[in-house]
């Protein structure tokens, strides 16, 4: 059976698209799925470093399109997880080095091999965005709970609908329970109400994401982290499971102690 291609997009830059692709891709592969992540951010490739695969790139997406290599030869195999591959973007080329039609063809071929093709879209609504969505069957829209990010998400949702991509689903990233609690950040309900689309997950703002990115190991590898748990939950929802939203605002004493304890345990393990 052919797999499906899912594009992760946002409109506004820097809200967490690449982090999302890395974690969902890794998480799905950890569940035993065959996954290929495609970096469609030509000229500003990042997925390779977030995944810790930057030293292994030989060929890239544009090489494939221009016939310098076979598609198979450009795929980088992750050594930590079975069945996880990356098709890197070209770093020294322009966004228009490939066309939406070419992107579509590549996705079609990949879908025969993989259960999931996850496409990391560049920010913006121009050529790179159109390439990224060209081969996609579904879309995930990432936003943070901020005015400008939500505004841009709304624009993107409109464009996705115009391209007849099935109803996009929303990921709210970098939510801060402490700020929500004191009324200084929009809550999940606020964002959903404004954008009127289906939510597929919420990821807290979490230092562990940055620590993980520093190491080139997606945070989903460590499910004791809150963000790792959040990404794992989204993975299960993609797989059709009905997983309740994780409790973000549990800053009771017990919870704080538990986290402290976990952190110490992790440190000890790392030493």
């Amino acid at each position, binding site marked *: 059976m052919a797999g499906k291609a899912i594009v992760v997009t946002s409109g506004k830059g820097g809200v967490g698209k690449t982090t999302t692709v890395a974690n969902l891709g890794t998480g799905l592969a950890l569940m035993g799925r065959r996954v290929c992540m495609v970096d469609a951010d030509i000229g500003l490739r990042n997925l390779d470093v977030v995944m810790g695969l930057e030293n292994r790139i030989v060929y890239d997406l544009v090489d494939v399109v221009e016939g310098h290599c076979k598609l198979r030869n450009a795929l980088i195999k992750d050594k930590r997880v079975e069945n996880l591959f990356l098709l890197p973007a070209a770093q020294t080329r322009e966004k228009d080095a490939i066309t939406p039609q070419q992107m579509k063809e590549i996705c079609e071929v990949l879908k025969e091999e993989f259960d999931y093709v996850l496409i990391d879209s560049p920010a913006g609504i121009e050529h790179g965005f159109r390439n990224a969505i060209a081969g996609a069957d579904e879309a995930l829209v990432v936003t943070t709970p901020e*005015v400008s990010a939500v*505004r841009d998400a709304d624009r993107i949702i409109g464009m996705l609908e115009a391209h007849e991509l099935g109803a996009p689903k929303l990921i709210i990233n970098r939510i801060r329970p402490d700020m*929500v609690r004191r009324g*200084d950040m*929009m809550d999940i309900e606020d964002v959903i109400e*404004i954008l009127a689309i289906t939510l597929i997950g919420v990821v807290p703002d979490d230092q562990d994401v940055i620590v993980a990115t520093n190491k080139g190991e997606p945070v989903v590898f460590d499910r004791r982290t809150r963000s790792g748990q959040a990404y794992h939950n989204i993975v299960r929802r993609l797989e059709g499971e009905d997983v309740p939203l994780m409790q973000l605002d549990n800053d009771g004493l017990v919870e704080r102690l538990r986290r402290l304890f976990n952190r110490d345990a992790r440190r000890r393990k790392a030493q």
Partner: protein
Amino acid sequence: MLEFFGRLFGRDEGSKKAAKDRLRLVLVHDRASLSPQLLESLKEDLIETISKYMEIDTEGLEVNLDQEEDTMALVASIPIRRVRRGVAAKANS
């Protein structure tokens, strides 16, 4: 000072309300200004509906979005030629 006490007693709503209100407004604008076609098709639907009740001057019909301080309104000016006979009777029965 007042704001300080507001915060102290947890009465202040924080900046979230401002964020939400501003977003709502800017999206009304964004969504509407996305397509002049939208206004056009709204006009056509209006003409169709209103024509059931009265004869209107479709040429002189105007529909605009008006933005004031913090509200947005759809303002329509629709010159009526004549009300259709029997409409009132139908509505009352």
